[in-house]
């Protein structure tokens, strides 16, 4: 999206935007990814504890799960993908 914006901007403004994005990519993109990953790991662990039965993990207290379900619904698709994806040690390297 940001790329399209810089294309639209064109000329000197586009070049400046591109430079800003590149410097952000060098300086801080890995930090924001890492923060996102940390947050997602905590949230996904929480969803696993409360909604594990959606993945076939037997979870005992359905009352609390049902109370939380509306809040979790928007994340269920990405949570399932992330939890069920085959991983190896190299996935945690970068």
């Amino acid at each position: 999206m940001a790329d399209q914006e810089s294309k639209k901007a064109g000329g000197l403004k586009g070049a400046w935007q591109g430079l800003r994005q590149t410097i952000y990519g060098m300086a801080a993109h890995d930090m924001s990814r890492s923060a996102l990953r940390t947050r997602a790991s905590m949230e996904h662990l929480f969803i696993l504890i409360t909604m594990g039965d959606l993945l076939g993990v037997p979870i005992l207290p359905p009352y609390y799960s049902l109370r939380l379900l509306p809040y979790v619904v928007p994340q269920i698709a990405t949570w399932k993908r992330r939890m069920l994806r085959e991983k190896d040690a190299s996935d945690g390297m970068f």
Partner: protein
Amino acid sequence: MNTLWVVVTAVVVIYVAYTQYAKRIDRNVIKADAKRATPARMYMDGVDFMPTSKNVLYGYHFKSIAAAGPIVGPITAAYIWGWLPALIWLVIGVSFIGWVSDYSAIMVAVRNDGNSLSAISYKVIAPRTRTILFIFIFFYLLLLAGAFVGILAAILAARPDVPFGIIVLALMGLLAGQMMYRWKMNMLLVTVIVVAATLLAMIMGPMGQKHAPNGALIQGPIGSAIVSLNKTVDNMNGNQPLFALQDPTGADPRIPVPGPDGKRPTTAAYDAATGMIRTLPDYLLWMVFLFAFSYLGANMPIWRFAQPVNYIGFWVMFITIVLSGIGALTAPLTGMKDAAGNLIGAFALAPVKSLGFAIEAGKAWQPLWPMLFVTIACGAISGWHALVGSIGTARQLEYETDGLPVGAGSMFGEYTLALLSLVAVSIAGVGGGGGRFATGVGKLIYAGTFGLVPEVWGTALGFGAFVLIVLTVTQLVFRVMRVTLTEWVGDVIPPVRNMHVSTTISMLLTLALVLTGTWVYLWQMFGASNQLMAALSLLVVTVWLRSEKRNPTYAMIPMLFMYFTTIFATMVTARNLYVTIAANPKMGALPVAGAWAMIVLAALLIVAALFIGWDGLKAYRRYGATPAALGTKEARS
């Protein structure tokens, strides 16, 4: 030769290789299609898989691959063979092999649901390939850590004006983490405070230095304090070395460069009469400092220390590289001269020192082929890039057509960094290793700022940037090492799953390697394992292209060249270790033990590469005999 010619060469090579070769491969072989959904768009989870602007991704990929390799490699190669062979290999390597590896690793992962190279090798080559790759990666990281810790400890012990900046960096790293994540301060303000403090500390290190009438360097207040600390530590052992050893290659960072008379002077760490390197307690002190720094980086929450340190390191490096680049471009045009009255833009190093093909009994053999091709690792091609590309970058690619500017473009950026490093050591005129690089950077910054930043400050910045880039990588290497070690033996030896245990084991192995190893062999072994990993990633690409019924030639020829070159280079290094150390009766028990350990390591790497090569060959034949592509997304659809 002057620096402007190198800049012109760099621009021409990048333009021709990118437009005439890389774009054709992208269009005709890979057939990148902007309309085809990438894993980032198909599996978007807002975390690992996330469509990202190609500009951001270019910066991210470049930062991830631009470590100490493109700096240390050209420095070492220029010392052994001269700058011309190094320049030629950089140009040819990046044009036909380097970008191929980076770009293809990304595209293979993009076409395979964003899976890592190890997962793809499991699928397209053989299940055991993934296991072998992990063992391979651990030893590769061990060699990398050994080479980096060795060179850093030597610099910190020998240059009292450098450690202050690094100590302040550690403190600023902790402070930046606290300010950004706990106090939630403005990012720009945090950046200004911590980067300015680190730069100031680096410049303060040499402040007040002066030369005595006999030419000896007298340290300023900060340098004197570090000298006192070193002396106090050395006095604990009566100023005697803990042990002494010989380096038959003469490339150990503690050995001083020969003076104008061609003889090496005696220093605290080197006895010129006997040729013995004295391992003094202060060397061990700085090694412990490096381990403590890396321990924090490997075990603290990543936001608390490792990331802020990397962030500060990035800005210091960025400023240094930009100013040096401007200096390389403008020095020959403005005709600026250094303090000694020499033209800054002119090369002072010999273009060719030796091709090294002649074998002398009992001496190290350093033939141009294959040793140059493993000594210069990351600036021309690197296996590390393929790992980063397949895991980190491929999962964020918004359009397939972004793969070329991001993957190949970053590799050309890395090549530019290697050229800059080569330019710095070639114009320096004095010093050796990291010192020569820092001196060259000092001159370039002086020229790049049109005399505003004095050479001595520029040199301090060069030293600081060099140590920083190596150190930030080292702490991350230990972090990755403990993850890999846990994955490898954690099930068999459960205590290793504890991160403190796995980090300690990794550090002890590194310590043993540094104390007993020979630096140049350590670097060349690392280079060989790195290039071998690149060859293995190209093997995965070749087999995948074959499975897709595409023409694999553009990846297969570089793969074969790198595969045989690196295996042969590993054999040559093992031979050198045996002839110059293991079978040398003059050597003590420690270097002999270290040499044997490295010979065993070389054998392990070769066996691992042969297994993967054999499995790759079988897979290649299998796909050749199969009418349709196997197990690929395209074949199924």
